């Protein structure tokens, strides 16, 4: 541990407390706002109610957007995790010199500014007449999720001893079976974390949805963006509260399982 004088420690600790307040208050503030009973965004609200939750649950538009988002996020996860895991495995075990370039290529969706990717997929899908189709959004979200899957599954594979697979194959099973029975169970945490991240990254995605979602395929985030810009009632606060509770829960679950498997790996 780095040494510190008591005075320094107190000064730093109080500064940090303020900064942590700055980080967390905006996340927490939406909960009381969502339970307020006035249409203005006054804080603290003059009284309490659940009317904004009722407004959300009673609105066909919001519910449709929410279910579209869940559908898209689920499909994104179901496509991105297998193809990302396959690519990660291929790149990790392949002995070709050019594998490095393929890795860089697959990571670029993370580096290219999202607004540019948005314009790009809009160009493609508008040429094909697919703007507003759900599959267009799913495909675009898979593109954005691939780097996440590559990062997490890649980390899992790096800490896995490939000789175990070799041992299994030397005993007569083929590569695919060796992967399923030996490798996959041992990197399952990474695959699970990759699934959570790709699901959340799709659920959370705004810019691409603004470009290529229309009418029927309006996602939750697109609906939220429009409603924030038009400054309508605090229904958005209720939606936000539900979304935050869910995301933080899922992400914490993924984080905890990652930490647990890291500890297990250290203990072994």
């Amino acid at each position, binding site marked *: *541990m*780095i*040494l*510190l*004088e008591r005075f*320094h420690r107190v000064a*730093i*600790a109080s500064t*940090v407390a303020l*900064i*942590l307040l700055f*980080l967390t*208050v*905006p*996340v927490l*503030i*939406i909960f009381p706002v969502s339970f307020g009973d006035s249409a*203005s*965004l006054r*804080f603290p609200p003059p009284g309490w109610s659940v009317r904004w939750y009722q407004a959300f649950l009673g609105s066909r538009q919001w519910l449709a957007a929410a279910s579209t988002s869940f559908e898209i996020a689920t499909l994104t996860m179901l496509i991105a995790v297998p*193809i*990302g895991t*396959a*690519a990660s*495995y*291929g790149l990790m075990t*392949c*002995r070709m010199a050019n594998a490095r370039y*393929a890795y860089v*290529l*697959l990571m*670029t*969706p993370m*580096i*290219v*500014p*999202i*607004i*540019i990717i948005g*314009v*790009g997929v809009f*160009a493609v899908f508008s040429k094909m007449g697919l703007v507003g189709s759900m599959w267009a959004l799913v495909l675009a979200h898979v*593109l954005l999720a*691939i780097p996440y899957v590559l990062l997490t599954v890649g*980390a899992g594979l790096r800490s896995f001893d490939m000789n175990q697979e070799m041992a299994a194959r030397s005993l007569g099973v083929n*590569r695919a079976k060796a992967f399923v029975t030996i490798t996959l169970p041992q990197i399952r945490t990474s695959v699970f974390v990759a699934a959570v991240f790709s699901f*959340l990254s799709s659920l*959370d995605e*705004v810019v691409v949805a603004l470009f290529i979602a229309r009418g029927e395929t309006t996602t939750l*985030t697109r609906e*939220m*963006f429009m409603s*924030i*810009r038009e400054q309508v009632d605090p229904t*958005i606060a209720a939606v*936000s509260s539900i*979304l*935050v509770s869910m*995301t*933080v829960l899922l992400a914490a679950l993924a984080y905890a399982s990652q930490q647990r498997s890291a500890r297990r790996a250290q203990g072994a």
Partner: protein
Amino acid sequence: MSATINSFQQRIDRADNAAELARAGRREQWGLVALVLPAAAFVVALMVIPLVWLFWQSITDQSGALTLMNYVRIFTEEGTLATFQRTFVASLMVTAICVVLGYPVAFLAAVSKPRTATIIMVLVLIPFWTSVLVRTYAWLVLLQRTGLVNQFLTWAGVVEAPLALVHNLTGSVIGMVHIMLPFVILTLYSSLTQIPADFGRAAASLGARPGRVFRTVIFPLSLPGLVAGSVFVFVLSLGFYITPELLGGGRTVMVSMLVQRNIDLYFQFGSASAVAFVLLAATLLILWLADRVVPLGKILADR
């Protein structure tokens, strides 16, 4: 005689075996390449090809003739140039504020007992996991004229009339700092915790006081993480769309909004693409330059 035939036969077998092995090896390598293809197909079809097409749009005019007009316009039109400058300055401000606010948090977490460190990092991770849209909305609530921040400032007597904190550059910068700060803290924290504790103790045993240990040992060793985190945040800020759009109130236009408006309002793929490619070139150039100073990929992957 039979011994000669035998060894001859063996040699043929060995050659056959070697050829067969090489073939099997090649087949296996191609099998592994095939595993990468689906993911690569996504990236090529939805990113590489569109980018090539957009680039082509940016260097041709309606009749299809080559032209640099779209790029010339960026540097001659006052509004466009000002937008680039504004984006650059705002991103620099966001990065500087994130470093100043992020360093103490990462530092305290790194020197604290595991329990305290966990609490600090959880408080950093919760906003990190929260939707950017939700956080932007929260800032809209907090920063409006009747918002909590203005209520507090007038109550404390700091200001007499509510300040205009949102629908301008101030709002954009505050919101962007909130989104980017966890990135800086997480990168810095991992590079601070990787400094062996013995280094600090060694310096202290030689008589350095804690302040000096920090200045001469800890801080220099944390620089790679600091550079990586700052570059990452700067580059993300350059292309950021959601938060500046909502908190800037459509008045403080950033580069990303220029791209969006050229497509959505004017359907001008040519000029949108030119702006997009200048942004992309700036992003890649900064990442490339930074990567020559510190190994960005390694630091970010370690996080």
